[in-house]
């Protein structure tokens, strides 16, 4: 569903992503880890078509993001780390706008809006202007909007920031349900416990290079360590840093 083929991305003289090749199948929950500034958000932005690779290709659902981006974006929902909402719209109006943007017809959009409103427990505030929402309420509204059109690819950047434990639990369940329905989930986060619990495969990026990719078990083998994901992550990134300095 998501294919990155020898992707490089440069900001001026600095290389943010270097020769990244990834293939993520439909229905897979892929977790993307890395220290701050490793190239995670740049990779995600290339997958959404906000940025173009300096070299290499990015394909989503078989569409080349550089040439067929509009068609590819019809399949994608992207949740950035700082979600955007129109302050002067109510939550319901925002959901309606997103439903219209993805071309859901009248009955379907009403049904889907009711469905996500219940799923994310938005009913108490969905008719208030979003400028009055707390961070958690904003996160839930944006997440609800992302699922309206039943995307084939869900790209999520740091989804748990600002959510209470009950909302985090709900979010985990929803991500699991989505993958069961065949949605490909690309999850970028620093919450390693969530990754350990949910991800079928994990990619670790460091200074733009993919230094590890596979199941937790295969990463443990690569790190020669039988510990938690946190220990494996720290060992692999420290080794990569030492290699880079050498």
């Amino acid at each position, binding site marked *: 569903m998501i294919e990155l083929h020898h992707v490089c*991305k*440069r*900001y*001026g*003289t*600095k290389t*943010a992503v270097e020769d990244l090749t990834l293939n993520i199948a439909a229905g897979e929950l892929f977790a993307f880890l890395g220290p701050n*500034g490793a190239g995670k958000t740049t990779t995600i*932005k290339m997958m*959404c*078509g*906000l*940025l*173009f690779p*300096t070299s290499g290709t990015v394909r989503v659902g078989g569409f080349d993001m550089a040439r067929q*981006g*509009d068609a590819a*974006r*019809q399949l*994608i929902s*992207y949740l*950035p780390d*700082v979600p*955007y909402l*129109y302050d*002067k*719209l*109510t939550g319901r*109006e925002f959901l309606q*706008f*997103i439903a*219209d*943007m*993805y*071309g*859901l*017809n009248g*009955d*379907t959009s009403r049904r*889907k809006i009711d469905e996500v409103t219940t799923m994310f427990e938005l009913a108490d505030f969905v008719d208030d*202007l979003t400028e009055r929402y707390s961070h958690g309420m904003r996160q839930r509204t944006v997440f609800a909007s992302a699922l309206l*059109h*039943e995307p084939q690819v869900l790209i999520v950047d740091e989804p748990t920031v600002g959510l209470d434990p009950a909302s985090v639990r709900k979010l985990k369940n929803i991500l699991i349900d989505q993958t069961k329905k065949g949605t490909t989930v690309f999850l970028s986060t620093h919450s390693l416990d969530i990754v350990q619990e949910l991800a079928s495969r994990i990619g670790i990026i460091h200074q733009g290079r993919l230094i590890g990719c596979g199941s937790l078990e295969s990463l443990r083998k690569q790190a020669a360590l039988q510990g938690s994901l946190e220990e494996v992550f720290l060992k692999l990134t420290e080794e990569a840093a030492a290699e880079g300095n050498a």
Partner: protein
Amino acid sequence: MTPAFRTVNEGWLFQQLRWRQLRNTTSIVFGSSRIRLISIALCSLLVAGFVGGVSWAGFRELEQRQIFFAGAIIGLLFDFLFLSLGVMLFFSTGIIVYSSLFHSPETAFLLSTPARADHVFAYKFQTAIAFSSWAFVLLGLPILVAYGVVYAVSWHFFVLLPLFLLGFVLLPAAGGSVASLLIVNFVPQRRKQVLVGAGLLVFAASVWWGYHVVRSSGELMTGNRSALEDLFGWLKFARNPYMPGHWMTRGLQMSASGELGAAAMPLALIWSNGLFAYLLATAVARRLYRRGFNRIATGSSLRRRYGGAWFDRCLGGLLWCLDRQTTLLIIKDVRTFRRDPAQWAQLLIFLSLGLVYIANSRQFFTQEIGQSFAQGVSLMNLCATAMLICAFMGRFVFPMMSLEGRRFWILGLLPMRRERLLWGKFYFAAAGAIIVAEGLVLAGDIVLGVGATALGLHVVTVAMLALGLSGLSVGLGATMPNFRETDPSKIAVGFGGTLNLIAGLLYLLLIIALMAAPYHVLIMLKMNPMLDVGHVAMVSAGVAAGLLVGLAAVVIPLRMGIRTLREMEF
């Protein structure tokens, strides 16, 4: 179950989005911020009324004097007006389109949806036009209405006027938008230099051209016929038959004389070219918008180095008399201001315009001017400078406290008394305002040749204005902060900003009425630069009262601000 989809009409969708936001905003404004709405409407009416009044007086003068070629002179004025407004619209729309397409979280969000690039562009272009043409309507409409009233033109003129104005906006706005798309795509790393370079070039050309036009206009008042030919020569560029501004002039003059058929041709030219330019701009956006978005995000290095340490050291040295913490706070504010081109560019443009005005104010008069007239003009210059400081304070100083926003906890936790924060901002604002305003007023007075007494009075009045307006803006800014907003222009037009503006205007009127106006009025009435003892006592009493009012304008708002800061939770 896969949801049922339909074809998306994005244009309609964006119009609906705009309509919903407008409806919600309007209901909030009518429900809770009526004072703000009334203040904005009153200020707009005041500006439009002033422009209309001055234009009416000018056109009436032309009509009553029965000047030969009056029609041609009016045509010339219109050509000049539309050329100037066109250039302003080109730059203002270009800048607004640039920031809303490439630096707004909304467009980053829209570009991650299936919305097509040209539709996103069209949506933001229409918003930019609404913003940039607001000033165009506020300034252009009263001038043209005054012309229509004085010359008692055909009713067709008033009916067609909005159509002409609406159509004219499209062409420069589309040009500015295409220019911003091309700059971002082809010189993404040097876009600021290109913009500053273009701005300086246009400014230099305008000053050179304006100087000659004003000189020729001044000679025209002496009845010199060759001056009229000179003036026509200098404005030849604006009168070119291919210039859209000239189409406007021709169309409006035709409709004024009731020649509907003849007015239709320029109107059609304006609309067809405007709509074509708009289509062209959307076609350019379809190809270049996403590419430009990518280039601007990745055109330069991720990390940017900022220099200017030597400047901060010099500033620190100059502020030796203040305590270390206040000095550091002032340096922080100067640094923040210096690194935001949107802030200092506006300041620079207004200052340059002020200087050009002062330098040229004497050029209007080829003969020696009377003392009474010089006194009147110098009082007018003082009022203009005071209004300028008041506007600067409202736009730049009032939002300073609010802009600390979510970072306020950093300052709140520092081991210092919170009032230092206010004093730092007050010193920064007052010093800047005193230097700029004293410079402008002194330059104007020297050019006009007013006496030493008027000069001295102006120096004291301007100092009180700068101090009082700084105190008001800093104090009220701390009393009514808006920590949720990050855009200083939006903070300035909020409720607190509007209240600050009104308080500032009342203060400047009071100070000028107490400290400067009595002297000028007495001189103008007596026609003699020497005052008798009774008049000197009267002027002195006014100055003393002004000093007391100024002191109150500094102390009271700052005390209110300090109290709010001390009680503030974060």
